[in-house]
């Protein structure tokens, strides 16, 4: 765990919400904290560098952004091939997440991907392409039928 001081915590608290849409959006907040805007920017850069903040920017709603078909696809890959296949999956721009997971024998598809497509047809062609590139033929497509909850984690 990264050593964070109170100011870093407060910056995370600020940035887990929506940044005010204004000129110098950190200015009034920085004044309340008794620091300069420069320091806020410096701290954000530091947290991007050490990985506490993975990315700064916009988070979109998939469906509204034209990506109507979002599927979790889990692949049966043996542990020895995981890194090689994982690297191929990671290079695919339509894949947002790729994890090797601990699974039970009842669901033996340990390599998980999230694929975002604009149509069913596009999803299938992405899957076909991955099958061809990885030569992994056993997979299960878990399409989302209903979104019951989708939020950002709040840490403070």
């Amino acid at each position, binding site marked *: 765990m990264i050593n964070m001081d109170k100011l870093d915590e407060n910056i995370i608290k600020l940035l887990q919400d929506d940044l005010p849409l204004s000129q110098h959006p950190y200015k009034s907040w920085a004044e309340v904290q008794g620091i300069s805007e420069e320091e806020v920017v410096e701290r954000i850069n530091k947290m991007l560098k050490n990985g506490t*903040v993975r990315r700064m920017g916009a988070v979109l709603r998939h469906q509204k952004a034209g*990506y109507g078909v979002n599927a979790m696809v889990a692949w049966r890959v043996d542990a020895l091939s*995981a890194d090689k296949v994982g690297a191929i999956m990671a290079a695919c721009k339509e894949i947002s997440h790729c994890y090797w997971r601990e699974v039970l024998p009842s669901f033996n598809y340990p390599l998980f991907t999230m694929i975002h497509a604009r149509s069913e047809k596009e999803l299938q062609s992405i899957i076909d392409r991955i099958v061809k590139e990885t030569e992994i033929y056993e997979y299960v497509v878990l399409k989302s039928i209903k979104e019951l909850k989708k939020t950002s984690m709040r840490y403070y």
Partner: protein
Amino acid sequence: MSGVCTGRKGLETMNKLDDLDRKLLDMLQNDFPITMDPFQDLAEALDTDLSDIAERIKRLKENGIIRRIGAIVEANKMGYTSTLCACTMPEESIDKFAAVVNNIPYITHNYVRDHELNLWFTLTTPSPEERGRIIKELQDQFHIIILCMPALKTYKIKVILGMD
């Protein structure tokens, strides 16, 4: 946001966007300026002025394309542990489960999927003990078995929706 995941509505909203909207969405995701005046800098990079950028972002938030602009925080670095969970839930209990989950801040994503394991959610907790406690409570309340599938390796995590 909840509802059936159909793409059509999204495509209609997207079709109304002009080139500058699309470029702006790409930059907001990929190249958000880490500066004292990020929106002004975006305006300059896109050859327009701040009021135009502000108006466009406001509209993109109103029509739901942009959920928020801020930081995407890495749970592990915050000392949290995360796992994917799945279970088989009887159809008639899904609404009740959704309501319970809505009150658990540590569950951020919850989806019905077309599989025998029909309910999939993510659980991010400050400690493994807290994870165990929540899983046990849900199992007891709904008389289900929850499979936990924590990530052992991360090959990619980058949610960027291309506008091209």
